[in-house]
């Protein structure tokens, strides 16, 4: 994998993650070299036992639907902020962003910033209203005054599609990473991840999923802080000495200190920026976390803490990437015959752990990477299972005529089914190029979920017809344009040139979704559309004050 390829926008990170299959196929020796990583395995087993203990504790408390979906709304702002940050700091972002800094320098920072800037907007425009209107899923909010059936079907589809693409990308990345770090076969790695995730979610629900995420977030932040500190100590806390050394040893020299290929195409860069910024505000597993806190005060605190931890984490990955340039790229022990990183481009942070902290830190960081994957896939699966049981089963198929026990049973069944599906898809996609999947997930979240959710809270004129048609158009456009872009049309399908010239469709699909939602709403003169507009007043006052949000939500 060449540096210029890595520097390409979103898919590059995941392409790097997927450099692993090629490596594993032609360089089995190096994979086996990791087979003796006893430290990593011991630390991971400790993590698993501890989190299973938490799941046991949570299972005894998970008796109602409200505990299962939202931990009974008893999570504090700080805890929820850590959990949200944990959802966001996946193994792909830890290893991928530090790898992007390792290969391209400054461009890695540009990429990570895109993931952060959606949070202030969620804070200022959405967090309070979400908390005041929703109960279990974001479909509760969009269907608050509109027709349950079509809106929940749309929101559940948006959720399941986003979760599926995100999940496949995580599962494939997980298998490759675990194979490399622990020396476990790909297929067993998939099964271990899938089975543990089913256990956490089925028995512990949101309570266990949240605590697993919090513990992992602390471990990851702690491990990354330690690595960054050890790098800085190596350079006597003189950051200019670190940069000077990096410029000296990096093949691109001074070019790593300035923006490079990341924004070679401004339209592509802005389109990616829109997908990352507004997609964040449409990710179902993130939106669901706003319902785990007691009130709007705690919801706001959650966003502040999440933003702080995520921003801090990206600064750490930047230091770690530069540390790897100076301490890993200069050490032949971490390089193959051609001078590339052993185990693929994504190993920069892992080898840096060894370089600054020896086998103990290497084992710790490997275990944390494994834990990270587990926590992220658990959150995704819970969001997907909730959409199936709470939105599709209880509202669309049973029209709300369902008791809590049955709904919980369906949730747990859906969790097991999603877990098995994730294992199977992970195994099927082992050799597939899934680089486009996370970009697609963000694009769909920005184009299908976000416009409908936003307008439902802010625009009185939104009607069922407008929201449904606009949302489906956004979803379909995001998928079709992604298929026609380079990531699938050329890289996966092998066509000579892309029909859609940009890497991410959000710049077009999101505004079009807004436009069509508006158009099909204002041209909707039905009596039901008028009744929906009349119900806006009550929804608006509740969204502003939280009056009516306590206790059983009546919708």
């Amino acid at each position: 994998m060449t540096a210029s390829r890595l520097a390409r926008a979103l898919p590059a990170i995941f392409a790097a993650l997927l450099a692993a299959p090629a490596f594993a196929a032609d360089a089995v020796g190096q994979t086996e070299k990791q087979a003796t990583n006893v430290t990593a395995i011991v630390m991971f087993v400790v993590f698993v036992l501890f989190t299973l203990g938490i799941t046991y504790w949570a299972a005894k408390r998970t008796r109602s639907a409200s505990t299962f979906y939202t931990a009974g709304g008893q999570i504090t702002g700080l805890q929820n902020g850590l959990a949200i940050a944990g959802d966001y700091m996946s193994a792909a972002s830890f290893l991928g962003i530090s790898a992007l800094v390792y290969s391209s320098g400054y461009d890695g920072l540009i990429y990570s910033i895109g993931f952060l800037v959606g949070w202030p907007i969620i804070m200022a425009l959405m967090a309070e209203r979400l908390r005041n209107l929703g109960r279990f899923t974001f479909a509760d909010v969009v269907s608050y005054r509109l027709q349950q059936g079509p809106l929940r079907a749309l929101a559940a589809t948006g959720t399941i599609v986003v979760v599926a693409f995100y999940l496949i990308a995580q599962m494939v990345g997980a298998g490759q990473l675990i194979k490399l770090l622990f020396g476990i076969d790909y297929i067993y790695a998939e099964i271990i991840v899938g089975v543990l995730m089913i256990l956490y979610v089925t028995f512990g629900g949101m309570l266990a999923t949240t605590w697993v995420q919090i513990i992992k977030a602390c471990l990851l932040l702690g491990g990354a802080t330690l690595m960054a500190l050890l790098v800085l100590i190596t350079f006597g806390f003189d950051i200019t000495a670190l940069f000077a050394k990096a410029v000296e040893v990096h093949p691109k020299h001074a070019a790593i200190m300035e923006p490079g290929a990341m924004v070679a195409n401004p339209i592509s860069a802005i389109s990616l920026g829109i997908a990352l910024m507004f997609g964040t505000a449409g990710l179902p597993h993130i939106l669901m976390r706003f319902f785990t806190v007691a009130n709007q005060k705690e919801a706001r605190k959650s966003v502040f803490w999440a933003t702080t931890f995520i921003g801090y984490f990206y600064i750490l990955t930047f230091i770690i990437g530069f540390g790897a340039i100076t301490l890993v790229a200069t050490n032949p022990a971490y390089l193959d015959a051609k001078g590339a990183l052993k185990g693929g481009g994504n190993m920069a942070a892992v080898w840096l752990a060894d370089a600054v902290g020896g086998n103990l830190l290497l084992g710790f960081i490997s275990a944390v990477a494994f834990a990270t994957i587990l926590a992220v896939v658990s959150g995704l699966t819970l969001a997907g299972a909730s959409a199936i049981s709470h939105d599709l089963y209880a509202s669309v198929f049973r029209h709300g005529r369902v008791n809590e026990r049955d709904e919980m049973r369906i949730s747990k069944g859906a969790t097991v089914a999603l877990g098995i599906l994730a294992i199977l898809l992970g195994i099927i996609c082992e050799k597939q190029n899934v680089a486009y999947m996370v970009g697609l997930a963000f694009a769909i979240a920005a184009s299908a979920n976000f416009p409908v959710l936003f307008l439902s809270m802010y625009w009185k004129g939104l009607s069922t017809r407008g929201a449904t048609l606009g949302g489906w158009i956004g979803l379909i456009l995001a998928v079709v344009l992604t298929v026609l872009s380079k990531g699938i049309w050329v890289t996966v399908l092998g066509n000579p040139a892309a029909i859609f010239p940009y890497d991410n469709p959000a710049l077009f699909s999101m505004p079009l979704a807004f436009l069509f939602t508006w158009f099909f709403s204002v041209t909707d003169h039905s009596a039901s559309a008028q009744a929906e507009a009349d119900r806006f007043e009550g929804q608006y006052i509740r969204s502003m004050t939280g009056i009516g949000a306590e206790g059983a939500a009546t919708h």
Partner: protein
Amino acid sequence: MQADMASRIRNNPDFVELEAKRGRFGWTLTIIMLVIYYGFILLLAFAKGVMAMPIGGGITLAFPLGLGVIASAIIITGVYVLRANGEYDRLTARIRESVR
């Protein structure tokens, strides 16, 4: 929510104040964040020379600007939380009290 309760809250001066203040503040912060982020991207795209300008110690102007975008995201959320958890929640509490 009953219609009479809705109209009572609607006409409550505290609600009118909350609506005006929070709306203005929320949208102002949103626009500030949009300008900062897309301004940053446009600078990267069209003023690469400026971004690559050395500012001493081998560091280019792009570094403080990039870290500044991260810091601004944290500061904006922090500023909103401070104001909302104080001023807005006091207003909200008064509104809720009035309809009890």
